[in-house]
């Protein structure tokens, strides 16, 4: 799993049946500091996240199929958690209530 920031929304009227009715969001994988770490991708939302939120993303098919209970589903990238806070070495380095990153170190 990795941290990501939700940066956009996707509207797709024609999809594979498994995705019908599900929310897709554009997510940017990030370090705790907020800098991008990998390619921005599209994820299935399972927690009700929105633009600007920091989330926990899993990008692996077997896990994705377990979460959606779809043994033969073509799924891989899912938002599986909403990040409230990130602690590192005893200090809070991210807090969603402020949306800001506390200075680390």
């Amino acid at each position, binding site marked *: 799993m990795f941290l990501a920031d939700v*940066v*956009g*929304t*996707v*509207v*797709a*009227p*024609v*999809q*594979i049946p498994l*995705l019908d009715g599900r929310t*897709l969001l*554009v997510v*940017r994988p990030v370090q705790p500091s907020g800098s991008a770490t990998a*390619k*921005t*991708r*599209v*994820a*299935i939302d399972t927690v009700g996240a929105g633009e600007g939120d920091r989330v926990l993303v899993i990008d692996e*098919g077997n896990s*994705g199929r377990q979460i959606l209970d779809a043994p*033969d*589903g*073509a*799924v*891989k*990238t899912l938002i599986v958690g909403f990040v409230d806070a990130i602690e590192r070495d005893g200090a809070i380095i991210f807090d969603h209530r402020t949306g800001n990153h506390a200075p680390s170190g």
Partner: protein
Amino acid sequence: MYLARVTGRLVATQRYEPGLEGVRFQWIQPLDEAGQPMGAQLVAAVALDVGPGDFVHFIDGREAALALPDETYVPIDVAVTGFVEQAAVNGRDLAKED
């Protein structure tokens, strides 16, 4: 899954069978969050009604084969999973841009 633009059509009659009969192939250009090309163009298996110029999302890896409607135990590693009407990022709609 990633965003992409369909750029072309590819014909290949001699293909792995049984399993790939009726599957269409199209070129796609993966895009980043600014709508700019991200990496090399890929050939995707397509089982939806999309074509060149369309904005889509796609899946890669083994899961791509599962996006096909019939036989899913096939050697496919990129497949289009949806037609995107709108992709709003930073107040821009990437689907409406070139």
